[in-house]
């Protein structure tokens, strides 16, 4: 099939041909069974692309939802810390008056602070729609993960990660989350898990890149962390571009 015919088919199916062109092309289709077959295939292709585009768009909205929840969660944690530690805060104010506000403003933010203000563990897969129990497809009981028992969750996920399964990238992705949440955290293992996610072909790339950069931050490896955040910040289409740019300002 010639490329220009493919273009014509696409424009025909999208209703972008003029009335005259549309009639002429319809006549050609009626007289040519191969062309009719091509039309059917292209129609299916457009539906496949549309279904995938919709799925990606909804996944992007889900990322925004989590992102906003992370921001609100961070704010909530900040408020709790402020409430519980008011006496400590008062002492800090006294200290500030001694050292001067100007000096305090120059105090660098630590990698641990940056990590704490930007990291919240990714939610366990939710049912795809509210009226279904179907999740992202991993045959995993997410109870331990949801309950914050990250060691138990990691024990399950590590087995799936080792399998040659098309969804093992998801196991690695959540394994990385678990390693960052363990007490004590295991950022080096998290780094390896996120790197394995990035070796595979799927649509979790942007999330994995973001969490990999955070894992390096947690490991206090500022060079690698900086390099990964920079890669994200210089990609205007990256979901975490603005956040990475903000972190780089502090780093």
């Amino acid at each position, binding site marked *: 099939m010639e490329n220009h015919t493919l273009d014509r088919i696409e424009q025909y199916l999208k209703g972008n041909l003029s009335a005259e062109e549309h009639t002429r092309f319809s006549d050609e289709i009626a007289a040519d069974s191969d062309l009719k077959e091509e039309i059917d295939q292209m129609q299916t292709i457009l539906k496949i692309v549309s279904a995938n585009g919709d799925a990606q768009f909804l996944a*992007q909205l889900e990322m925004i939802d989590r992102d906003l929840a992370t921001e609100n969660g961070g704010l909530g944690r900040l408020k709790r810390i402020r409430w519980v530690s008011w006496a400590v805060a008062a002492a800090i104010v006294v200290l500030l008056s001694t050292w001067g506000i100007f000096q305090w403003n120059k105090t660098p933010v630590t990698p641990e602070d940056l990590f704490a203000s930007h990291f919240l563990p990714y939610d366990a897969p939710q049912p795809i729609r509210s009226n279904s129990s179907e999740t992202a497809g991993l045959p995993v009981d997410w109870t331990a993960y949801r309950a914050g028992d990250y060691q138990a969750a990691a024990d399950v996920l590590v087995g799936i990660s080792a399998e040659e399964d098309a969804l093992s990238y998801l196991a690695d992705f959540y394994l990385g989350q678990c390693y960052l949440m363990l007490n004590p955290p295991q950022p080096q293992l998290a780094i390896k898990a996120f790197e394995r996610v990035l070796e595979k072909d799927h649509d979790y790339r942007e999330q994995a890149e973001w969490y990999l950069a955070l894992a390096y931050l947690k490991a206090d490896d500022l060079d690698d962390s900086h390099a990964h955040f920079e890669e994200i910040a210089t990609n205007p289409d990256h979901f975490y571009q603005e956040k990475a740019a903000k972190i780089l300002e502090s780093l």
Partner: protein
Amino acid sequence: MRYTDQQIVAGLLAGGRGEHSLLKQLYQVHQSTVFRFVQEQQGSKAEAKDIFQEGILVLYKQVRAGKFRGESSLGTYLFSICKYLWFQKLKKESRRADLLERQPLPFTAQDIDPYRKMEDKEQRDLMLTLFQQIGEQCRKVLLFALYDEISMDEIAQKMGFKSGQIARNKKYKCLKRLKKVMNEQPEAQALVRELR
């Protein structure tokens, strides 16, 4: 920075799905109104989230298709879409049929319904699986070209190709790859027949 409706519309037309900050503002500003409405109507929080996200998807497609003409604010328009989707859901589940009929719409139902999510889970899963098999680069090229409908020059820029012509050639190759994947799998052939 707070974007105006005009800036959001212009951004969605220009940058498509990539405009995270615009979508984030839409989400953040209008979420509570829709959630409150659905929950006041005895809907759950999860249902409210589904309706709201689907409403933004419909709004996005309306904007891309040039059907949002700015006669109301984006927020009012989005709320109307979500109300319509919610009443349609109630009708489908035989909870309340009358609300849908009484709902005044700033658009025709025909504008909205073609965008509704595919209900047949098996078909949807097959479509996602087939698409997964053509590789990440092809997936991106076809989504940019056929879903977002952005120009070949822009695709070249986003994907790091040297020119729009290279992007166009890549698109043809990816179309052929997807056809090959479809032709090699009998389930896909059945899908082609079902979708006719």
